[in-house]
């Protein structure tokens, strides 16, 4: 019996790991500041299962938070009544795609430049900073009109090679 116990003690610790099958998680929240924290927690739950590093999970969480903040800003400017945001996470073995869709209005403007001098960074408003953060924090950002007259921001983060 002492031999068997030794065998048990020498076995490596087992950990549960995600099966990483393709799956979709969809969250709909009011397009208001109070609920962005809830969206970030949901994304934390989704991304944590995927073998991303701590910093990568935080990057995704912040990028999604920025996309939500943008949507809230648009809804406020356009005075949309009871606006909603839908956050759709597509989990695949190779990547996480998060679509943040609002039903406000389409954004104008171009992509933004990542190599601004300090003076220009200082004069950026927080929406521009948010767009810059999204560009830096995830691997792909695209913005397109959503069906039904809103904006869909698609964020893609690739999983680690292993």
């Amino acid at each position, binding site marked *: *019996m*002492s031999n*068997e*116990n*030794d*065998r*048990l*003690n020498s*076995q490596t*610790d*087992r*950990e*549960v*790991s995600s099966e990483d099958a393709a799956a979709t998680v969809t969250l709909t929240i009011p397009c208001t500041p109070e609920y962005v924290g809830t969206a970030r927690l949901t994304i*934390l*739950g989704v991304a*944590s*299962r995927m073998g991303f590093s701590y910093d990568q999970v935080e990057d995704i969480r912040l990028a999604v938070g920025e996309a939500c903040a943008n949507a809230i800003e648009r809804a406020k400017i356009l005075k949309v009544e009871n606006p909603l945001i839908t956050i759709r996470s597509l989990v695949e073995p190779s990547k996480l795609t998060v679509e943040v869709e609002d039903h406000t209005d389409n954004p104008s403007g171009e992509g933004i430049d990542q190599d601004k001098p300090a003076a220009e960074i200082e004069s950026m408003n927080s929406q521009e900073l948010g767009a810059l953060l999204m560009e830096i924090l995830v691997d792909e950002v695209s913005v397109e009109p959503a069906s039904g007259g809103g904006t869909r921001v698609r964020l893609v983060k690739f999983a680690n090679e292993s």
Partner: protein
Amino acid sequence: METTSMNLKVTPRRVDEETQALDLEGEVDVYTAPLLRQEIMDQVDAGVKHLLVNLNQVEYLDSTGLGILIGGVKRLKEQNGSLKLVGPSARITRIFEITGLNKIFDVYTSEADAVAAAKA
């Protein structure tokens, strides 16, 4: 305000000739419970007499996990051994109390107490 871990880690650790501990860390839920069941079964199959399940680092325990612990208690009792729980948080102690499971589980604050009780 809340520490969240998405996984469960189970580390077997030998205490003495006839006592084995399982150190749990994380969440015991419908996702991770099969791992706990397997680890307990491995110990039973290896002929362990007293099993101490260390809940000190467990922050979430659902009915699936409770069911597996109850199953473990029964299995070890059948072979004249015991399964004891060590160091649950206030939150998990409360779950034992409100479900009446404190009548079934032997719960100890420290591992030393649990070992002493197993030998008594």
